């Protein structure tokens, strides 16, 4: 097992591809078909375009609060690519890449950030939970989903995401422990992007790595270069297979960096230096993957430009649709509190409708 070779307690981190796109651990390089490589790369590109555009729209006053994920594309796509369609995805709130991979439509994603609950009503066949805003609370849901898969003797695995900040929360602890005790088929990806809003990683906890927190649950934990899609993929794949075999959960820390602000309401210049951002920009997960593909002659600068252009058009068109979408109808804010509206709700809706009618006159 990888974890035997890359113990976080010994200060080891798994990386396979360097920032220049060179493969430095040939033995560990996953056997992915060219098609798959291109699919993943394109999805990273799309993620980047969707993300960059969302920020632009927001700056133009056309979008509400949005949580960018620029810089974390490999951590997300490398991990989710290790799962199958039947597996469950439990996001925190910044997993754009994983959502797209899972098949959520761009329109829904934008609709969500545009402030409409319909954005979280995923199609029946997509096994994915909506965004969990209360940090780390989703880890308990993920443990429960995985426990249920085990109970039903289904071989679906649950893959859940949490941030570096989230690991300090009691809900992280309880969910990890439940999953471990019940051998739940769960893989938890910590996207260690170095900050929880403005709070740097070292204020969050005194440990050297976040992966070593796995020790507290008696499960494997591994730290990987989160900007290296191959490292992330290989660790995730091994963890998914372990889980599918019924051997319980794994904790993976993907070391990465949020190149943008925490959300559109955040000003990161308050709490980090430009040099730091520049250093991390050099480790850009997309650039690195592109270099690799170009080296391998699977891709070219021209293709890249064309692809980006196409995505930009797609994204612009989709956002326009979202922008022109209707507001949430009055009925809908009442309709989903329970399966059937309570008499109370029926009356409140009716009274309010009457009031509105009276007002119109």
């Amino acid at each position, binding site marked *: 097992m990888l974890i035997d070779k890359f113990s976080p307690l010994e200060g080891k981190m798994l990386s396979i591809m360097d920032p220049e796109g060179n493969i430095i651990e040939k033995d560990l390089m996953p056997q992915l078909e060219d098609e798959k490589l291109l699919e993943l790369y394109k999805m990273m590109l799309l993620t980047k375009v969707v993300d960059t555009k969302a920020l632009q729209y927001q700056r133009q006053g056309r979008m509400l609060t949005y949580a960018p994920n620029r810089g974390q594309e490999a951590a997300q796509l490398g991990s989710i690519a290790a799962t199958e369609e039947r597996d469950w995805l439990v996001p925190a709130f910044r997993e754009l890449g994983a959502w797209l991979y899972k098949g959520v439509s761009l329109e829904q994603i934008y609709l969500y950030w545009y402030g409409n*609950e319909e954005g979280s*009503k995923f199609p029946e066949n997509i096994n994915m939970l909506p965004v969990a805003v*209360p940090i780390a609370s989703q*880890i308990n849901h993920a443990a*429960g989903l995985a426990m249920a898969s085990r109970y*039903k003797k289904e071989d679906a695995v649950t893959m859940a995401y949490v941030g570096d900040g989230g690991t300090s929360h009691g809900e992280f602890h*309880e969910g990890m422990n439940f999953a471990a005790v019940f051998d739940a088929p769960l893989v938890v990806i910590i996207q260690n992007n170095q900050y929880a809003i403005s709070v740097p990683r070292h204020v969050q906890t005194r440990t050297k790595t976040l992966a070593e927190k796995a020790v507290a649950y008696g499960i494997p934990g591994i730290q990987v270069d989160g900007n290296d899609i191959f490292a992330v993929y290989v660790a995730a794949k091994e963890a998914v297979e372990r889980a599918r075999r019924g051997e319980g959960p794994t904790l993976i820390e993907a070391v990465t960096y949020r190149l943008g602000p925490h959300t559109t309401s955040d000003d990161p210049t308050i709490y980090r230096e430009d040099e730091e951002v520049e250093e991390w920009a050099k480790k850009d997960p997309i650039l690195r993957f592109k270099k690799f593909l170009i080296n391998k002659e699977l891709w070219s600068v021209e293709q890249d430009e064309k692809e980006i252009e196409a995505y930009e058009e797609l994204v612009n068109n989709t956002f326009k649709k979202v922008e022109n979408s209707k507001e949430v109808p009055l009925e809908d804010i009442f309709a989903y509190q*329970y399966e059937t509206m309570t*008499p109370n709700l029926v009356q409140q809706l009716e009274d309010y409708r009457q009031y509105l009618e009276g007002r119109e006159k």
Partner: protein
Amino acid sequence: MALMNILNTINHTLDQEMERDDTIVVYGEDVGHEGGVFRATVGLQKKYGKERCFDSPLAEAGIVGTAIGMAINGLKPIVEIQFSGFILPAVNQIIGHAARMRNRSRGKYHLPMVIRAPYGGGIRALEHHSESIEAMFAHIPGLKVVIPSTPYDTKGLLLAAIRDPDPVLFLEPKRIYRAFKQEVPEEDYTIPIGKAKIVKEGKDVTVVSYGALMPQVNEAVKELEKEGISVEVIDLRTISPIDKDTIINSVKKTGRFVAVHEAVKSFSVSAELISIVNEGAFLYLEAPPTRITGFDITVPLPRGEHHHMIDSARIVAKVKEVVKF
């Protein structure tokens, strides 16, 4: 039919429903091997195996949070919180998630899950073992809060709760867990959530209560009737969604209203009841709608708790006052 107390009935009902529906799993602290500190789940692990009835680690957010995940993934978890005082660490999951998953996902996900917790005082217990915090949860849209007061109702309400497609907080009146027995039918029946019960019709005054205080209310009413006061007694059974119609209709008839509960007075269930009465039957009122409740204090330890508990004499006195007004 068998004679059962409330505790037996819970066990019997869980058993019957687990047999019928194998998507049900039952868990919580000490729930599995031991069968719960009150023995509500005794025998279930033996009968249905460790997969379906099991002990969990000591972590309430974990218990409720995993139940949410299970409910999404096709199961019907019934979890136990050992005492309602220990529900507090799970509030982020209950209020922040369980109550919201349907709305958040616009109906894609809903949570057929039940959180059972014994509530209330009067059992001479340690701190945090005697709370009545139903109002906190009744205030939250997306939750249902049910409190039975008899074995018969316990079965019907618990079955309804388990089969409800939405999360139900099922608060059990532990003080009267073993207080009395009733014939409980063997067969399957549900009592609709959201419907109060008119325990006894009357015409002078409406008294509304629920849960562990119902025996005191009934005792008081006997006393009052002896003195010629005709009391309409309503057992709420469901705190939320609350059954306004039954209450309003009753007050329209009697013109007088008394709410009785053990929970502290301010910002409580009785406050909502009084508001409902005002909103629905103001012109019928012949006296201020009023309430007999716990004081606005932390439930005292046993050597002071008796001051805080409500007995039938207090109910009698207050109802007389209201009738004389």
